[in-house]
């Protein structure tokens, strides 16, 4: 689903991403970890077709990140903590907007919308402004909207920041459920326990991938009990 070889990004003298290589299989939950400033966001921007690499190769859903960025954008879903939905549009308007932007036909949008509202128990809130929803509900709705057009891959950028611990876990159950349906999930997070939900995890340090394996293997490799300790070991050097 995602193939990356020697991918780099330089800004003048500064190398933000330094020849990273990895692959992500269909239906895998891939955790992309690293300290702030390690290069995660820059790497994600290259994979989502928003930034042109300086070097290396990558394909996302089979499309080339240099020459087929528009095709990539159509095939992926995206959700971040910083921006997800329009607060001053209603729940229904947001769903219709994003469906339309991704080229869904009006009839399909209508069919799927009722299904989505039912699943999230938001039917009676469909005409409420998204801004009036509690944060946890917003996050769950934003995730569902990112999957609305049935993308093969979804990119989640710190999707559970600040949310209460129960909602955080409900959110991860939604991720599990999506992965079970064959959707590939690429997620970044600062919660190290969430790293444990992933099939495979990579940790970026200063633009390079310092470690990459399943959480269980990484813990064994570093002889520690938790991903938190793996991270501290690596990032502190």
């Amino acid at each position, binding site marked *: 689903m995602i193939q990356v070889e020697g991918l780099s990004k330089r800004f003048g003298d500064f190398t933000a991403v330094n020849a990273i290589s990895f692959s992500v299989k269909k239906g895998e939950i891939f955790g992309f970890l*690293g*300290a*702030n400033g390690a290069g995660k966001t820059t790497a994600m921007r290259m994979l989502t077709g928003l930034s042109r690499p300086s070097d290396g190769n990558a394909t996302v859903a089979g499309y080339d990140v240099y020459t087929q960025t528009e095709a990539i954008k159509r095939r992926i879903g995206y959700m971040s903590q910083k921006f997800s939905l329009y607060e001053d549009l209603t729940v229904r308007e947001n769903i219709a907007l994003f469906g339309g932007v991704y080229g869904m036909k009006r009839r399909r949008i209508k069919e799927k919308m009722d299904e989505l509202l039912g699943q999230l128990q938001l039917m009676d809130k469909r005409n409420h402004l998204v801004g009036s929803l*509690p944060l*946890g509900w917003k996050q769950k709705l934003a995730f569902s909207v990112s999957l609305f057009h049935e993308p093969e891959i979804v990119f989640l950028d710190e999707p559970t*920041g600040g949310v*209460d611990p129960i909602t955080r876990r409900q959110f991860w159950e939604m991720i599990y459920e999506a992965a079970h349906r064959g959707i590939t999930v690429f997620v970044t997070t600062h919660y190290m*326990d969430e790293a*444990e939900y992933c099939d495979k995890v990579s940790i970026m340090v200063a633009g390079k991938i310092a470690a990459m394996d399943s959480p269980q293997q990484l813990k064994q490799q570093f002889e520690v009990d938790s991903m938190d300790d793996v991270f501290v070991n690596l990032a502190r050097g």
Partner: protein
Amino acid sequence: MKPVEIQHISKSYSQLRALSDISLAIEPGELFGLIGPDGAGKTSLFRILTTLLIPDGGEAKVMGLDVVKDYKMIRRKIGYMPGRFSLYQDLTVEENLQFFATIFGTTVRENYDLIEGIYAQIEPFKKRRAGQLSGGMKQKLALSCALIHKPEVLFLDEPTTGVDAVSRKEFWEMLQRLKEKGISILVSTPYMDEASLCDRIALIQAGTILSVDSPNGIVEQFDKPLYAIRTTDTYQLILDLREWQLTHSIFPFGEYAHLITTHQVPVEEIKTYLIQKGHEQVVIRQQKASIEDCFMDLMPAVA
């Protein structure tokens, strides 16, 4: 005299009840944590205590001074680090520090010993503009500026939010050293694992306090049987246990899932149920609740 005393504080923003009847007191020299997710009311409470917001009801005192009537005096005695980076992005590190020292009527040199351990790490960058610092460095600068006038009480509103796990640990180590110097510290965080680093904590959710105690005290109060369970398929494990009639709650917790049962159940019985459902490599152990387990159990029912 208690550094902070809060009595029946309430605050609403039009329809939204941000704080409901909050009462709390901090002891001198305490490192006190306000633990709760976004929207719990932490920032509203901090703004009231730092005299930036007037409560609708109740009273609060900082260093014995009333937050409404004596706001000017309080502002001189406290250090405050708000949730978002609030320093001057286009002034250098050095200029920011000098600015805050000056407006508090002191000099950088006078209380330098207090911030030395923190500032030393960003001193090599002192001529860099604050806006160009990394997240971890901004935090250290903001903390230095909040301490430069040697406040008696320090208010830190989510100082570690959005920061990576290593910087978070380092920050809490700095707080421990400050506490040793006798400063009372009230810090808020959504990270439950940071709760155990405080002397006492208040768990707050949707404007109400769920519990106040030492971290150990909160855990000791938890009286339900809790099991950590691991199988090869975490998602299926959760679905299967959710259907089980002996389950009170089941949640993922990393590699393990945490099961709370309606009453004490032998581990073998849980194992039998899971094997019958087709699970492999089943590992079960009964264990003590963490702060996060307690918080989730105390939370009012979520949708």
